């Protein structure tokens, strides 16, 4: 077994510095790497480019980094839940690249899988395709989208082991598996770091080869963005 386990979040984020490009898993606030984000805030690194489907809310998730103005550029598909984000974007303090959600996932996956770029129909004929190479395949138009290049990928899983194997839970899986191995260093934080051999190899979602560092998160708030319930009859 090649040991990926690090003792603390501090060790897990060793090497992070100003102006780096980071991928962060999560959809809304579900499945975000809460501990890595807190540590990035503590480290005070600046000028970050963050690739993440959403930008958190004002006081949680990536919103915490936005508050401290640590982010230079966001690459996201949907950013509707964050007033500070909107303010920084409209004032020009924050550079924002909005891209289709499937394209975001596929640019991560391409980086993970060793493809320099992929053709997608998403965004053809819109401003998203401006300046990009397009091509006709069997009568339909596609846009060439390049694989991301990132320094760190911060992902969050439910369970993991010292070998770096990961299992995700529910829809908190989202972009996390696609970002594993898509950056120079992948840091996985898990709710439960289980003993080696405790995970059934048949059930593993991401094999440890895609993960360089793994640690058990000290605390998870797992905030719910839209609590919706139905009444009991």
């Amino acid at each position, binding site marked *: 077994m090649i040991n990926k386990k690090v003792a603390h979040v501090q060790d897990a984020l060793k090497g992070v510095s100003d102006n780096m490009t980071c991928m962060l898993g999560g959809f809304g606030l579900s499945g975000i790497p809460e501990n890595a984000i807190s540590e990035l805030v503590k480290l005070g690194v600046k000028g970050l480019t963050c690739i993440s489907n959403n930008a958190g809310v004002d006081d949680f998730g990536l919103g915490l980094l936005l508050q401290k103005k640590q982010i230079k550029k966001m690459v*996201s598909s949907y950013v509707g839940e964050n007033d500070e984000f909107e303010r920084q974007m409209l004032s020009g303090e924050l550079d924002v690249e909005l891209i289709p959600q499937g394209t975001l996932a596929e640019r991560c996956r391409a980086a993970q899988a060793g493809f320099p770029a992929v053709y997608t129909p998403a965004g053809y004929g819109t401003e998203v395709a401006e300046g990009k190479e397009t091509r006709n395949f069997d009568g339909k138009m596609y846009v060439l989208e390049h694989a991301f290049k990132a320094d760190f990928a911060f992902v969050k899983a439910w369970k993991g082991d010292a070998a770096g194997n990961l299992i995700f839970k529910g829809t908190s899986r989202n972009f996390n598996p696609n970002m594993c191995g898509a950056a120079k260093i992948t840091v996985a934080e898990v709710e439960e770091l289980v003993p080696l051999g405790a995970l059934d190899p048949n059930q593993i979602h991401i094999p440890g080869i895609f993960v360089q560092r793994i640690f058990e998160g000290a605390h998870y708030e797992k905030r719910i963005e839209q609590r919706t319930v139905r009444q009991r009859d």
Partner: protein
Amino acid sequence: MLDKTGIAKRIAKEVKDGYYVNLGIGIPTLVANYVRSDIEVEFQSENGVLGMGPFPFEGEEDADIINAGKQTITTLAGASFFDSALSFSMIRGQHVDLTILGAMEVAENGDIANWKIPGKMVKGMGGAMDLVASAENIIVAMMHTNKKGESKLLKQCSLPLTGVGCVKKIVTNMAVLEVANMGFKLLERAPGVTVEAIKEATEGNLIVEGDIPEMNI
């Protein structure tokens, strides 16, 4: 004239047995409530779930099980979870049978705009561009006019596009329309709404052939 629930009820009739369906945020979400109970349908949410069920009972919410609107949900027997790339493989790969989404504007050539109002609202496209670029069967659910009373069915979209020439069918509070060769072909009228009123509220070319039946909801 229909309300939002009425639009959802009419669209629910388009959902057929054996369909995998992706529902957008807003009116489309309501459609799930009115699908016939004697057919089998599975709802896909692009954040990574197939086989979505109703909202959870109070106290049973799970932060790890949400829909694309970030609402807490439940899953039905036979449901599955998956990552975002696989989710969009279902969408881009045309494995999803029907996509229902909202729009700010639709043009008579099938163009759709629903993600950005320059200088005003910039929330992002989410999965909408992937959905409209790939789906064979797209129904737009929207009000016929905006809050200012201006038509949302136009000759040409004025807002930044989400997709080109992709919308096939539109269900509004006033009518059911099909995107045809030279304009919006009127298929049905909402209860109590005249063809004249629909013409008045449609900026794009409205094609009216023969008697237009009233919707059956």
